[in-house]
């Protein structure tokens, strides 16, 4: 009997020793695996951050071969390290598994051999204990039920999405009525250049500060115009390497945020003439998001808090002076007139992007050459039309589907001025040549049927026209203001006003606002007779068209953004 007991003790000691050895090995492999995990957790991110930073540098300087080589070497190092660590982890895990099995088996044997046989005492009546246990069990069931109920409550308070409220919450874009009261794109609603407000200042001075509510520097240059949505003003700026979107607070002029827009390596070789610049295109907003496009073909959307929602490169455009068409929006679509080359390569198209996702909603290919005009969405007899200009055509599309509605072959040359819709006519300028008016009520080719008139006594090369529905005003970049009758195209007057102009004219009530390159705003009486009402000096070069809001004008100078209005 004693021998049997000793034999068990010997086996128990052996099992315990084996379990200890298994435990030690388990500890060693655990330590090695943890060290491996910590190593990859510490080294991995720091190296990857470094690699990401170097990649950003490559984007800015893609021809730097030394940098490229360093990036490749670091990338290789990271990959080798990952593979080594995975291999190590794999082998160590198998060893760990074996150690755990030894520990478990030996530990179990040692435990079983050391188990003391049960020695139950005298049996007693456990009725009272059993009653208490049953009571506890009932409480435990109640507790379990309470935990489940609490879990269900937690799930419940996570909220739910009610699709039924979709219509009540409103669509993902602002209504037409809201848009008409803002300045959501180049030259305001419909690209008409007409202010919804007439309480606009007629006197200010940038040097003395008269009626200058605030003035804020713009980080990077650009010839695009301000876009205004309630208390936010948006601009873009760029140089050959960096593209940015800016948002200013309308009350204080504070730069609220700036958002970077990336590009593709192919855009690095892009060279654009100085007069166009790298940020000629004006941004556009649908009241929910702000969209920007750059001559590199990069389109991006930001929310009003500066978070970039999506970015898309449409391919670097082939545009002889540099891409300059601004964006338009229709409902939640972002409309891009993307005409390129000479029109024979099939690269030109009008693209509609889903503003929420950036995905292409529709594309309309066309065999038209590069153009610099900005498309406009107008309401014709209650239906929307997207009007585009490209030599030699004026083409209208359904902005919801991209389906072509009509086209008129009536233009030519390098088309930079954008079309307008007033008095029931779409009016467009052929630079140095003519102003053409088309009735937008036709279908198909309307060249012979719907061209209302042509005023063939010249036309601006850059500035877009403006009209109050009765008269249309043209501003030639070299000091000529022309007024024609909308109904007939008859020229009313042609007046030399001295100055160089890049900004398009705007209409505020019965006043015509014309901003010259020196920053002098010239205010004229709209109507049959030419009459100058005043001049307001800003004291800074200006290329962009101004934006109008309630009691305010926003003007982008070469280096600053100005808010002009009467202090409250």
């Amino acid at each position, binding site marked *: 009997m004693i021998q049997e007991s000793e034999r068990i003790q010997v086996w128990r000691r052996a099992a315990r020793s084996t379990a200890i050895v298994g435990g030690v090995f388990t*500890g060693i*492999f*655990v330590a090695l*695996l*943890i060290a*491996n*995990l910590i190593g990859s957790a510490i080294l991995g991110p720091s190296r990857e951050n470094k690699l990401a930073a170097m*990649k950003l540098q490559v984007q800015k300087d893609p021809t730097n071969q030394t940098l490229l080589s360093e990036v*490749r070497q670091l*990338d290789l190092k990271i990959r080798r390290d*990952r*593979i080594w660590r*995975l291999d190590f*982890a*794999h082998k160590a*895990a198998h060893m*760990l598994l074996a150690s755990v099995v030894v520990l478990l088996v030996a*530990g*179990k044997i040692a*435990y079983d051999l050391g188990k003391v046989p*049960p020695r*139950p005492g005298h*049996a007693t*009546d*456990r*009725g*009272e204990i*059993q*009653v208490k246990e*049953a009571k*506890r*069990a*009932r*409480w*435990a*069931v109640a*507790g*379990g*039920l309470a935990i*489940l109920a609490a879990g*269900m409550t937690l799930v*419940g308070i*996570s909220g*739910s*999405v*009610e*699709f039924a409220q*979709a219509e009540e*919450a*409103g*669509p*993902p874009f602002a209504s037409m009525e809201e848009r008409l009261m803002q300045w959501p794109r180049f030259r305001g609603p419909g690209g008409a250049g007409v202010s919804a407000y007439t309480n606009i200042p007629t006197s200010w001075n940038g040097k003395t500060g008269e009626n200058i509510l605030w003035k804020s520097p713009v980080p990077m240059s650009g010839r695009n115009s301000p876009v205004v949505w309630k208390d936010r003003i948006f601009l873009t700026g760029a140089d050959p390497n960096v593209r940015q979107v800016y948002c200013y607070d309308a009350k204080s002029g504070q730069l609220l945020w700036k958002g970077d827009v990336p590009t593709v390596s192919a855009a690095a070789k892009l060279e654009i003439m100085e007069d166009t610049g790298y940020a000629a295109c004006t941004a556009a907003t649908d009241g929910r*998001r702000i969209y920007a496009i750059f001559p590199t073909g990069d389109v991006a959307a930001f*929310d009003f808090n500066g978070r970039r*929602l*999506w970015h898309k490169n449409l391919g670097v455009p082939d545009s002889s002076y540099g891409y300059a068409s601004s964006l338009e929006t229709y409902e939640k679509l972002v409309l891009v007139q993307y005409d390129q080359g000479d029109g024979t390569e099939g690269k030109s198209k009008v693209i509609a992007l889903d503003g*929420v*996702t*950036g*995905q292409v909603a529709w594309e309309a290919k066309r065999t038209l050459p590069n153009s610099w005009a900005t498309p406009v969405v107008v309401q014709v007899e209650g239906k929307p039309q997207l009007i585009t200009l490209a030599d030699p055509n004026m083409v209208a599309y359904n902005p919801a589907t991209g389906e072509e509605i009509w086209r008129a072959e009536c233009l030519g040359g390098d088309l930079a001025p954008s079309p307008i819709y007033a008095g029931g006519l779409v009016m467009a300028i052929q630079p140095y040549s003519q102003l053409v008016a088309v009735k937008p009520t036709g279908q198909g080719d309307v060249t012979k049927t719907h061209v209302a008139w042509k005023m063939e006594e010249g036309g601006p090369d850059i500035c877009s026209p403006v009209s109050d529905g009765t008269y249309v005003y043209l501003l030639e970049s070299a000091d000529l203001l022309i007024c024609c009758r909308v109904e007939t195209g008859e020229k009313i007057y042609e007046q030399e006003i001295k100055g160089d102009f890049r900004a398009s004219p705007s209409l505020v009530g019965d006043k015509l606002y014309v901003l010259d390159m020196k920053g002098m705003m010239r205010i004229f009486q709209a109507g049959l007779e030419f009459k100058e009402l005043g001049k307001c000096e800003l004291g800074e070069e200006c290329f962009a068209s101004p934006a109008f809001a309630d009691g305010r004008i926003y003007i982008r100078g070469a280096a600053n953004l100005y808010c002009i209005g009467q202090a409250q």
Partner: protein
Amino acid sequence: MTFLIAFLGSCPVTQGEIRFPPPEFESGYTFPQTTSPAPQSVLQEYIDAAVLVVGLLLASHLILKRRSRRAIFVLMIGALLYFGFVRDGCICPIGAIQNVTLTAFDRGYAIPIAAAVFFVVPLIFTLFSGRVFCGAICPLGAIQDAVLIRPVAVPGWLESGLRLFAYAYLGAAVLFAATGSAFIICRYDPFVGFFRLGGNWNVLILGASLLLIGLFVGRPYCRFLCPYGVILRHLSRLSKRRVTITPSECIRCRLCEDACPFGAIREPTGNWPEGEYRIAKRRLALFLVLLPILVAGGGWGGYALKSQLARVHPRVRTAERVYLEEVGQVQGTTNVSDAFRATGQTTEVLYADATRIRGRFALGGALLGGFIGLVAGGKLLVLSIRRRRTEYEADPAGCFACGRCYKSCPKEHERLKRIRETAAGRA
């Protein structure tokens, strides 16, 4: 704890997503063509079903005839290796609950042969032999049984409360399978990651936690979570033959009292204190009144959560994400919303689908809530009724038929001695 975490961290598949990042440069590298594994052959399904039937026959024999814990343990390890590591823990009867449910609710779904066999056969064996499947064949039970080193007794009252979660899990699994939303039993199978040496991090951590607990608490998943175990518990009560601690008559020596690490040995009942009967009657009446209230309350709660429960369905999740993107309440898109838009379907169709699915969850949620209320109320009633037992016996519902208790009975030793003597006499 640490070694399991380290082991989890070492699982190669868990790190698979960072293993081969796409190339960084235009180096001429071409991605290998994506391939999919071939579907499982029908022959393999038949083989699995045959192994299951043979295993259950053997288990029944070893448990009821030979009464050998050692042989059962060897069979259990064999089943763990085959159904767990060789067959990757799939298919198992626990997950087959969902296949069967989906078959009942979706005419377009054809249940695989193996799933049907795996669901039905263990139920049949349980009716005749008790829970032999749990004790010797189930790989999930086996892996927990194998790591049980130093059992600690869980108080019976606590076990009663914890078992409620298994019913809730069963109800949820049936609801989500019936609505075609998800097979949550498979998705959250805590041990399949170990069988496959890799898987979802969260589930691996859940499995590791259960195994750690399982070092001291016998089979925690089987006892407190397993939805199939819930069905087997109730069938096992009806079983014709099942595990008995003693091979003959109980002598009430109490040597088996602590022999079961799963708390499945019931002691003889004692006498209730004076006055307890009157209180018990009133309590029983109260719980009888409470039962319909719990069912109705649970049903109402489940109905109220229809939108949240429906979120488990991928179509509803997609609809909610797309909707939030459309109204600008969330920024950016996800792979799922991008994929939806790439289909060209309209959001109206998507929202209509989601609303219809939510409608199914209105009824399903109410049934689930009502079921949980019914189970809780039923348990309260059962715990208020006095049972009479004169012997130590294996709990017909809770016994996993592992055979651990046999050797604690002196009558079993007598039996074995007789067998040895008979064998020696023959020799």
